[in-house]
């Protein structure tokens, strides 16, 4: 135990149960390393109540807002806030990133604030770099490969310790039974397969595993949908082997069931996140707006299958009448993977090549959690080559770990094919332009500083240089449109510029210089990594060509 005096740290997490579970894991890491500090949770009552027993293991105190009552009794908020103000909070950490949570972070008094909040001019402030990265990558695009548990842990300021962070189960060893737990629902229709697909999966699982029982779980509100699956004619002869527990289990009971199940299959939902407490072999089917790399359950037995549909993953606000991504995953590929997991075998590329057809693998990605220095990485295990998006995701992970946490991640660089090479070459030219713009930004920030520190600063010159910096910002936005794969660098830099530190023009300009310099360095590292990947590809190509000519 360290000798630091005890501090009170309040964590805001007012989103859903899945997010609360992810928050639990990152805060549990903190608590195990710093048990002397008091940790307070600020959350919503409806999502906290079912997890009360689990959350009380790491949170010393909980303030749960009854949102539902707010509509009829506005005074609920006054009472909630006055209770909260009785806490002397040293550090407030907002992990929700919603508009409401950002306002909540603005009204709660605290000596230090981490994560987004509004200031008194109603401007959004995000001061710490990991929150800036989360805000500029996760909320704005799909090029993040950090699991949210690792993201939250980085925001809190902790390094990943696999020995303790991956051993956190809440069940003592339970006997595995011949049961397959299925949760065929999710919070939105775009994330959920239609019942017919689930009927096919359940039928195939029952047929291939005559010794196994199937347990269907879900909330009370999902009862009708569960019935429509179970009433399907195909399943009627097997009803004795299907136990419908939808609406009949509490969360602790669900955890017990997961602990003894041989396999869990479901979508990205609260139930899939519960497997992070039991480490049950898990297969999640990621659809719609789900980003498997961010939300795959946090344990080493977790797999996630996702479609290669062009528009996947979408944003919850995107209009979609015909869910193409739902059709791009076949029930056959899901049942084949499930079958292998039931044998307690790890799935790898060799297995996929020997078992799955090219037709099956051409439309899906299969991710498996592997351990990296910065946390868990959802590694794509079916494809031999990465496309340009996956390549950039891998590069960004290395870059952010290095630049924000000084962590030199010892990861293999992705292998690419000829198409990706061509796409990456075009990214290189945009990157070169972005690098030059950052250099100009540095130059004009320096000119402003020189003018400010001269004996007679000329306002007109300072204005001209500021205009140049505005032009640079506009040009960066144009690059964003033509090279969306560079969005994380541009968005991060834009957010950093909107949150410059300093209280006068000199310190603000110094801070602007630093941001442009950071952006320049990031461009340089990304450029070098892309060049290395392309060189490796060329070497491999040469080797293959010479092998081919030798064989002739």
């Amino acid at each position, binding site marked *: 135990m360290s000798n630091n005096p005890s501090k009170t740290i309040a964590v805001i997490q007012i989103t859903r149960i899945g997010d609360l579970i992810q928050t639990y894991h990152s805060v549990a890491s903190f608590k195990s390393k710093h048990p002397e500090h008091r940790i307070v949770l600020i959350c919503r009552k409806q999502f906290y109540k079912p997890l009360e027993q689990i959350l009380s293991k790491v949170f010393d105190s909980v303030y749960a807002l009854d949102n*539902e009552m707010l*509509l009829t009794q506005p005074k609920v*908020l006054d009472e909630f806030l006055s209770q909260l103000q009785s806490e002397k909070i040293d550090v407030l950490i907002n992990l929700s990133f*919603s508009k*409401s949570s950002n*306002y909540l972070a603005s009204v709660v008094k605290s000596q230090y604030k981490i994560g987004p909040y509004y200031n008194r*001019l109603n401007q959004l402030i995000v001061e710490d770099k990991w929150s800036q990265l989360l805000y500029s990558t996760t909320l704005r695009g799909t090029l993040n490969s950090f699991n949210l548990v690792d993201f939250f842990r980085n925001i809190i300021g902790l390094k990943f310790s696999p020995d303790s962070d991956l051993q956190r189960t809440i069940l003592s060893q339970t006997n595995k039974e011949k049961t397959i737990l299925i949760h065929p629902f999710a919070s*939105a229709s775009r994330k959920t397969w239609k019942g017919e697909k689930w009927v096919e999966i359940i039928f195939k699982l029952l047929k291939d595993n005559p010794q196994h029982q199937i347990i269907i779980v879900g909330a009370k509100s999902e009862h009708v949908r569960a019935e429509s699956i179970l009433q399907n004619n195909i399943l009627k002869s097997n009803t004795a082997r299907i136990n419908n527990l939808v609406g009949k289990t509490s969360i602790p009971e669900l955890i017990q069931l997961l602990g003894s199940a041989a396999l869990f299959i479901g979508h990205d939902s609260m139930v899939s996140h519960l497997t992070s407490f039991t480490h049950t072999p898990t297969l999640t089917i990621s659809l719609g707006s789900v980003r498997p790399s961010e939300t795959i359950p946090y344990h080493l037995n977790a797999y996630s299958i996702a479609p290669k549909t062009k528009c996947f993953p979408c944003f919850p606000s995107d209009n979609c009448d015909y869910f193409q991504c739902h059709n791009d995953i076949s029930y056959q590929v899901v049942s084949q993977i499930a079958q292998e997991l039931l044998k307690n075998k790890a799935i790898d590329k060799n297995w996929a090549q020997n078992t799955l057809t090219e037709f099956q693998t051409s439309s899906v990605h299969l991710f498996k959690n592997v351990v990296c220095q910065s946390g868990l990485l959802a590694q794509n295990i079916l494809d031999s080559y990465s496309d340009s998006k996956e390549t950039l995701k891998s590069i960004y992970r290395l870059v952010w770990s290095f630049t924000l946490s000084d962590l030199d991640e010892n990861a293999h660089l992705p292998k690419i094919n000829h198409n990706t090479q061509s796409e990456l070459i075009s990214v290189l030219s945009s990157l070169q332009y972005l690098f030059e713009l950052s250099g100009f930004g540095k130059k004009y920030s320096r000119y402003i500083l020189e003018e400010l520190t001269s004996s007679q600063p000329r306002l007109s010159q300072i204005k001209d240089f500021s205009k140049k910096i505005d032009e640079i910002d506009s040009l960066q936005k144009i690059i964003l449109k033509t090279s969306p794969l560079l969005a994380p660098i541009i968005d991060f830099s834009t957010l950093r510029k909107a949150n410059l530190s300093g209280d006068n023009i000199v310190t603000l300009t110094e801070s602007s210089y630093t941001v442009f310099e950071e952006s320049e360095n990031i461009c340089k590292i990304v450029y070098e990594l892309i060049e290395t990947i392309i060189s490796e590809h060329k070497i491999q190509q040469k080797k293959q060509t010479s092998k081919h000519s030798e064989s002739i």
Partner: protein
Amino acid sequence: MKLTNEQLKTVNDIEAKLNRGIELLDHELQMLLFLNLIEEEANEQQSK
């Protein structure tokens, strides 16, 4: 949900202040929090 006259006045004050670049007071920030929370809750109830 209908806002009370007092709440409506606070919302008008907030708009006027922000247009003139004047800092908001605690209860005004709290009003913005309240409005966002009830909007979020109403959306959630609608999607059920």
